[in-house]
């Protein structure tokens, strides 16, 4: 018993020294884009988690900044401003994996901790919380192979041409198809991760596609648009993989209630910004954090649909916010 009390006392002591070490530290979020629901949710999560953290004195400040034009040069200038303003850590969702390296190196040289997430930077001095996009593509085929063991023809909706994320997810999908040769991709369009662009692109290619499309593999933000295009063309609804957007989930629920429609939905929670926040806090705290970390996927299956839909705001994205413990678990897993 006495032993236990001593232990608890020690833990409290340790925790409070941990608090003391970062309570004067200031963290900035450098964000390159805010013009879609995912990024809006990302910024909101940042506020939800960092505000109480600042009030509790865990850190001195956690300010979010977004550039207007989604340009790497503009974001580089923003990071240079943050260096001048004397932040202790910069959490960055980067416009480009390489174009910010100069500014990031300057920050590192000034003794600033740089943590990149989602849109990561390749500069070795920064930490990376990366998404395994390839796996995200591959998982779709694993699910399809389970659901449709006899295979069939697939339509692929890609993201924004020329962006690294698009190449990675698509590579994963094609790897999955190679491993499950009963599937064949008969058409591929670019949906730019936007419902209206995806709807337009799918409507354009559908008339030329065979009638027996069994599935649509996607990258997120495009599933509802694809469904609209299939419905408008009067076609049988294939199995469309969703990307956790509320409109996609709401449509899935409608179909599920009407005809037992089954699919799955996978994406990255916008709350990954909060994971990056805690990782930055841990690094400032002097913890040993590996440079390469991996973000867990947020996957919704048939059973979890109602629960996820309920917690997802209309127009938003299914989300989870990460706690200090979650961040410590991710760090521990990477060691």
């Amino acid at each position, binding site marked *: 018993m006495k032993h236990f009390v001593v232990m608890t006392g020690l833990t409290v002591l340790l925790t409070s020294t941990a608090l003391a070490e970062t309570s004067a530290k200031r963290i900035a979020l450098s964000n390159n884009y805010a013009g879609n629901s995912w990024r809006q949710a990302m910024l909101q999560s940042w506020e939800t988690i960092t505000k109480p953290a600042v009030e509790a004195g865990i850190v001195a400040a956690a300010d979010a900044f977004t550039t207007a034009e989604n340009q790497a040069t503009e974001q580089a200038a923003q990071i240079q401003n943050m260096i001048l303003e004397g932040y202790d850590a910069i959490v960055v969702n980067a416009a480009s994996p390489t174009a910010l390296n100069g500014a990031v190196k300057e920050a590192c040289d000034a003794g600033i901790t740089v943590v990149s997430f989602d849109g990561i930077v390749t500069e070795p001095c920064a930490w990376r919380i990366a998404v395994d996009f390839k796996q995200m593509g591959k998982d779709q085929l694993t699910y399809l192979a389970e659901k449709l063991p006899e295979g069939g023809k697939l339509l692929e909706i890609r993201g924004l*041409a020329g962006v690294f994320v698009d190449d990675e997810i698509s590579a994963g999908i094609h790897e999955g198809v190679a491993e499950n040769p009963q599937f064949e991709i008969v058409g591929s369009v670019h949906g730019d991760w936007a419902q209206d662009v995806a709807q337009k692109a799918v409507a*354009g290619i559908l008339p*030329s596609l065979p009638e027996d499309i069994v599935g649509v593999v996607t990258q997120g933000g495009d599933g509802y648009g694809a469904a609209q295009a299939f419905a408008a063309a009067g076609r049988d609804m294939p199995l469309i993989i969703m990307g956790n957007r509320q*409109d996609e989930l709401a449509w899935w629920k409608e179909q599920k209630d009407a005809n037992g429609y089954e699919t799955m939905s996978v994406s990255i929670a916008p709350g990954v910004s909060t994971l990056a926040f805690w990782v930055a806090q841990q690094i400032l705290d002097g913890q040993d954090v590996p440079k390469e970390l991996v973000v867990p996927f947020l996957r919704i299956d048939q059973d979890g649909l109602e629960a996820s839909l309920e917690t997802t705001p*209309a127009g938003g994205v299914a989300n989870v916010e990460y706690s200090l413990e979650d961040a410590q678990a991710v760090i521990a897993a990477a060691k």
Partner: protein
Amino acid sequence: MTSLRTLFAKPWIWSFLAAAGVWLVTIVFTGGASAAGLSQAALTFAAFSIIVGIGQMFVITLGPGNVDLSIPATMTLAGTVALKIMDSSNGLILMGLLVTLLIGLAIGIINYALIKLLRIPPIIATLSSSFIIQSAAISYNRGLRIKPPSALAEFTTATTLGIPNLAYLALAVSVAAWVALEKGIYGRWVSAVGQNMRAARMAGVPVDGVRAATYLLCAVLAALAGLLLSCFSGGAALNMGAEYLLTSIAVVVIGGTAVAGGFANVPGIWGASLFLFLVVSMLNTYGAAAGIRLLLTGTIIIAVIIAASRRPRT
């Protein structure tokens, strides 16, 4: 023979030839089976480009330096606000239309005020106002996706006699624009201002009034297209107008309107809008990789513009 020659002298003919060619090549892929489906899809999606393209056409016709870059933001704001105000209720559709109109008018006034009163070049003025408009849309409801009223959703997605309703609407807008341009005094004034602003002023054309009216018209058409697009695709999104920035300019130029201003062309907007949709569909159908697709799109557009701008010597 002479009638054929006069036909080929029309600047708009090339965009139609290009659209027809691409359409043929695409349906050959399926042995003609996709003809009806593809035509319907093309008319539907071209309708949006036509409506914003006509607004942009009048602005570009005002002369060098005139262009409206606030079209995407205007579409987003109009779609977002109108859908929130209508709140999925059929009874509030008139209200929604009115709000759309007011948003268009307000943005047009702001744009022209920046250009005229602050003497900012139109490119910079409309670009900076688009940031303000986009921010207004974001802060208004942070990308909330509200379903359109069922009657409007039904109207924008349905067809009448096999032709999409949106195409009829685009046709009505085009006919009105054509009459204003070719038969009305407004069109003459716009062309006169575009050809030589000083000469137009001396000839008694109310130059400022014409320019203001044109920026207003462009913003109102963009707002209308935003409302239609958000009803068509089941809700407004913050990034929904983005691709219409370049599209609105491209359809004007491919359609045979002079980039330097002074000469507008309504029929060409149709050919160009259909062409831009069909060329992407064609390259998707034949499974071209993204790089090749963009390369070919660019090459074809350049070819059409060169063909269209070769004015016959008379």
